[in-house]
């Protein structure tokens, strides 16, 4: 049978604020000695009064806006109850029926909600004197945490990874979190089920009657492997005509398979109720406008812009992957305009020669390019002319390159250079040549 995975995601992102969500303790906790950044509020001591961090709420909303969500005009916090040693109050302050952001859409993926909550403490599982114990550190307790929940709109593991990478990049562009998976500032959970593909046309909106939750995923690589293993497991069970149990599973990398985590005896019943210690929050049009006003250009917008400049997909991705680099490129571009230096040339020396690493300021890089220019290089028009001729004369080499023989590129560049009597700039030739061949 041909199965198709149905995947939804929950993404947790720790915000990089200075202080915690409901108290003034420092939020940065990585590498800090245990239980040295805690106060009565984040330790859940009786009588402590939480007060919500304004910047954290604003950043949660900015994130929601970047995902095209609606912002709730009226919002509040709720208590979510469960027992676990990393949760000192035995409830987590979260949001239930009135999250800050709802109904977003990111490309084809529907975003159910984006809400604000507090992180839990950290448990280290270890052995002490032959006993299995957990060490509890509350430095992370109360750190602002944003939770993003998608609808089950993913139909492949690749789509999941692509989406998450874009989320990570967006968060970094917004400057609201490092979204570092290894340090735990971005954490993933996926729910996954399979359905027979042929059914899709007949039962378009019908989802399987079960879903398996995959937890504790801490890298993209791990995510891909865990999802692949779980899809394989479910497909095998379904092939055998078996039913799949709704449960939470973890992933064992050594054995490359998922395993059942002890399921709670009680069905999830968190007994949410409104947090009485924190008054509700009203977010007017004006506030939303102000937040939008402070919006940086997002990766997708930058890509669009660079495409219009005629840069190749490879160049665009390299530049966009770091906001600082994209900003550098744009500043250099603005400075270079008067010297008749092309976008491709600037992008080329950044991507291929890391010249932006050599010149801290874009002005330095442009100056360098101007100096090189005076060496009387062939113009962009001459380069294009030469490329046209070489491509026409070397049909076979071009075909080989298109078929994936990367090394042929060097030969073609050499031919163009010959045509230009050695006066061409290699980077410019390369970039122009690639986009010319791909554009054909």
């Amino acid at each position: 049978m041909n199965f198709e995975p149905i995947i939804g995601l929950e993404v947790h992102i720790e915000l990089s604020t200075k202080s915690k969500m409901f108290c003034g303790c420092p939020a940065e906790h990585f590498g800090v000695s245990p239980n040295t950044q805690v106060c009565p509020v984040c330790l859940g001591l009786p009588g402590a009064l939480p007060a919500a961090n304004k910047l954290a709420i604003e950043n949660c909303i900015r994130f929601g806006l970047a995902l095209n969500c609606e912002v709730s005009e009226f919002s509040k916090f709720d208590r979510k109850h469960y027992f676990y040693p990393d949760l000192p109050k035995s409830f987590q302050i979260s949001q239930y029926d009135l999250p800050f952001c709802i109904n977003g859409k990111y490309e084809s993926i529907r975003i159910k909600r984006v809400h604000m909550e507090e992180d839990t403490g950290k448990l280290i599982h270890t052995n002490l004197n032959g006993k299995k114990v957990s060490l509890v550190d509350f430095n992370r307790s109360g750190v602002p945490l944003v939770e993003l929940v998608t609808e089950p709109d993913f139909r492949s593991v690749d789509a999941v990874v692509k989406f998450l990478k874009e989320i990570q990049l967006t968060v970094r562009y917004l400057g609201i979190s490092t979204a570092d998976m290894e340090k735990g500032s971005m954490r993933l959970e996926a729910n996954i089920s399979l359905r027979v593909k042929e059914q899709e046309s007949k039962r378009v909106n019908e989802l399987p009657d079960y879903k398996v939750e995959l937890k504790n995923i801490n890298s993209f690589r791990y995510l891909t492997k865990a999802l692949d293993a779980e899809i394989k497991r479910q497909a095998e069970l379904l092939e055998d005509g078996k039913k799949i149990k709704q449960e939470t599973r973890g992933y064992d990398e050594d054995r490359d398979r998922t395993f059942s985590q002890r399921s709670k005896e009680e069905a999830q019943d968190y007994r949410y109720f409104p947090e009485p210690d924190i008054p509700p929050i009203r977010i007017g049009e004006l506030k939303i406008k102000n937040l939008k006003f402070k919006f940086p250009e997002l990766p997708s917008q930058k890509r669009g812009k660079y495409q219009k400049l005629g840069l190749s997909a490879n160049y665009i991705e390299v530049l966009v992957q770091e906001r600082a680099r994209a900003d550098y490129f744009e500043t250099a571009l603005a400075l270079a305009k008067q010297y008749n230096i092309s976008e491709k040339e600037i992008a080329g020396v950044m991507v291929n020669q890391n010249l932006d690493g050599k010149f801290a300021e874009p002005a330095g890089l442009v100056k360098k390019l101007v100096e090189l220019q005076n060496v009387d290089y062939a113009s962009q028009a001459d380069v294009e002319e030469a490329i046209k001729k070489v491509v026409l004369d070397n049909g076979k080499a071009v075909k080989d390159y298109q078929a994936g023989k990367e090394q042929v590129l060097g030969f073609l560049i050499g031919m163009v250079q010959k045509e230009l009597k050695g006066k061409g700039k290699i980077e410019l030739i390369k970039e122009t040549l690639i986009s010319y061949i791909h554009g054909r």
Partner: protein
Amino acid sequence: MSGLTTDEILHLSRLANLTLSKKETTTLKDQLSDVINYFKELKKLRTDDVSPTSQTTGLEDVLREDQVDATRILTNDEVLSGTDKTHNGAFVVPQVIDKDL
């Protein structure tokens, strides 16, 4: 109306992490049922013109700026003063998740 069933009481006790004796179960069943039944009195009130609220203070938007307040931070000794089960500055608790599972 009869109020809560024994099963519901047991469900609640598990959620609250409480172990109840048979006698306590019966007592709590009656007491909680009384409380629930008392809430039915509220149904007599006319609430058509009252919008729902979860707050009584009437306050909104009580927020704090994102600033570190080190004066409220406790020392590690203070943090751990309520327990004698500690290790390198951390609390020690029995392991809840068996990682080898």
